[in-house]
C-alpha cells in the first residue's frame, strides 16, 4: 500500500464560512475507520450521534429518534 501519510489536506478558494478544521477532522476520522473495527462489544454510537447533531432544514426538527 502506498500513499503520502494517509492524510488529506484541504484548500478552499473562497470564504463562505467554511470550517476547514471540521472537514479536516472528518477526513482524519475517516482514515481511522477504513480498517477493521476495534475491540468492543457495545454500541458504536457514531450513527446515533450523527442523527442527534443533524438538523433537517426542511422541518427544523432535531433528529433524535431512530435506531
Amino acid at each position, binding site marked *: 500500500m502506498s500513499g503520502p501519510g494517509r492524510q488529506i489536506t*484541504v484548500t478552499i478558494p473562497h470564504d463562505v464560512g467554511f470550517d476547514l478544521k471540521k*472537514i479536516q477532522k472528518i477526513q*482524519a476520522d*475517516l482514515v481511522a*475507520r477504513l480498517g477493521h473495527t476495534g475491540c468492543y462489544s457495545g*454500541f*458504536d454510537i457514531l450513527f446515533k450521534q*450523527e442523527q442527534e447533531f*443533524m438538523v433537517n432544514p426542511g422541518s427544523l426538527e432535531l433528529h433524535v429518534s431512530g435506531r
Partner: protein
Amino acid sequence: MYPDGKKRPKESVVGMRSAFPTTPLGVGLVYAPGLEPLIRGEPGLVDVLEIEPQTFWRKLAGGRYVVDTIRLNRLAELPGARIVHGVGFPVGSVRPPDPAHLRPLVECITLTGAEWASEHLNFNRGEDADGIYDAGFLLPPCQSPEGACVAAASARQSAVALPVPFLVENGVSYLAPRRGDLSDGMFLRQVVEQADCELLLDLHNAWTNDRNGRQPILDFLADIPLERVRELHLAGGVAEQGYWLDAHSGPVPPQLIDLARDLVPRLCNLNAIIFEIMPTYIDIVGLDVVRRELEKLHDLWSLRSLAPPPLRAAAEPAPDLANARSAALRWETTLAGLVTGRSAADSLADDLKRDPGLGVYRRLIAAYRASAVVGTLPFTGRLLVASLPPDALDDLFDTFWKEAAPEAFGEREARNFAVFLSARNVPTPIPLAEVLTFDLAVIDALTESRSARVSFSFDPVVVLGGLADHHLPEIAGPASETFYVDVSPAGLNFGLS
C-alpha cells in the same frame, strides 16, 4: 516510556521473542489517534501502547490482507513499549482463524516490536450455502467441554504461529447461561489450560457478564487460573434496555476499581494494565477523563504482587477433537445465522430465539453497520441523515443489511453500501450521486493513492461545508457554472470550470 522513564530500547524492535519481558511493562491504553496528546505530552502516564493491528489493515478483493505500513510506522515516534491485541481473528471457534491473517499479523508484531500478542475467546463467522460469511460482531463461543476443546486447539494453532507469547482474552456474552454449559470461569480455565497459553483478563467483560445474569464475578475469579493472567483490561460501559453493555464508553465504574484493588495483589505474573476507550467516545468524555483513569490504573499497578509466582498447574491433556467439532459447529452456524437475519429452525435455534440477548446482538450489529457507513462515507451519510425521515433511513439500512453480509473492514462496508445505494433512487435535495462519488474518491485517494476530479452541479464548498457543519445547506437550484473538486492523496482542491 518504560517504567524507569527510558525510551523503548532499539533492539526491542526486532520483535522475535518467546518469553515475556523480565521487567513488567506497566500501565497503558489502546492506541487511538485522539489519544496522542496524552501519549506524547505526559511522560510517565503511558508506559505501554496496545495496538489493534487489523485497524491498520486493508482487506483486498481476493481476501488478502495488507498492512498500511505508513500509518503503522508513524507510531514508532510514540514513546512506550508495545503489545498487539488482535480484533479480527478470534480463537473461540471450531473454524481456525483465516490463515491469510498470519503473515500481516507477524509483520505488525515485527514492525511494532510487540512484546506479546492476544486475541479474543469468541467467534465472528458463520456459514451458509454460499460459504463462510462475517457475522459482524464478536459472538460467544460454544461453552461446553466440546467447545473448550475446539477453542483450545484454535488458540494453540495461533500461539505456535507467532514469534511472541500469545494471550487469550475472556469475552462478553449477552445470552443467558445455558443448562449444561460450563460456567464462564471454568470454560476459560479449560481453554487456556488445554492450550497452555496465558490470559488477558478483561475485568469489565467479566463484570458485564455478571451484571447481565451470568456467573457472579467473584465465582468467575475463583474458577480461572489467576497465575496465568499477564494483562488486565479495564473499561467503562453503559446500561441500555436492561443490559449492561461493554461499550468502552468512559470511566471505569467505581465498583470495578474496588474489585481490581482486591484482585491485583493476587496477580503474581501481571505485566500490564490497559485502559480501553472507543475512539468515538474520546471526544465526548475528553482527555482529562482519560488521564484520570490512567492515574487510577497507576494506583492499581502499585498494588501488584512482587512475590515469586507459584508453581503452575500442568496443562490439561486435550480431549479428542472428533466429537467436539459437530457440537461447536452447530452452535456457531445457528447463532451467527440468527444474529444476521438468516432462518434457522431446530431446537437450538428455538431456544436462542427465546433469549432476549439475541435482540441485543441484532441491535448492536445494526448500530455498528450504520456507524460504519456514516463513518466511512461521511458526507453521504450526513446527506442521508439530513434528507430522509428516520424510519425511511432505517428501512434503507435494513434492506442493505439483508442484501449484504456485514464486513468488518470499514472500507469494504463502504464500497458495498455505495454499490447498493447507486442502484437506488433515493430522493435527496442535493444530488446524492455527486456526494457519494466525492466520498469514494477520498477513499480511493487514501487507500490506493488515486486522483480524480469530481464534478458538482452545486457549489461543493457550500454543500460539503454545510454537511461538515451538520446542516443541509439551502440551495435554490443547480448553478449555471460547473464546479469541481480535485481529490488526490495530496489534498482537496476546489475549483470552477
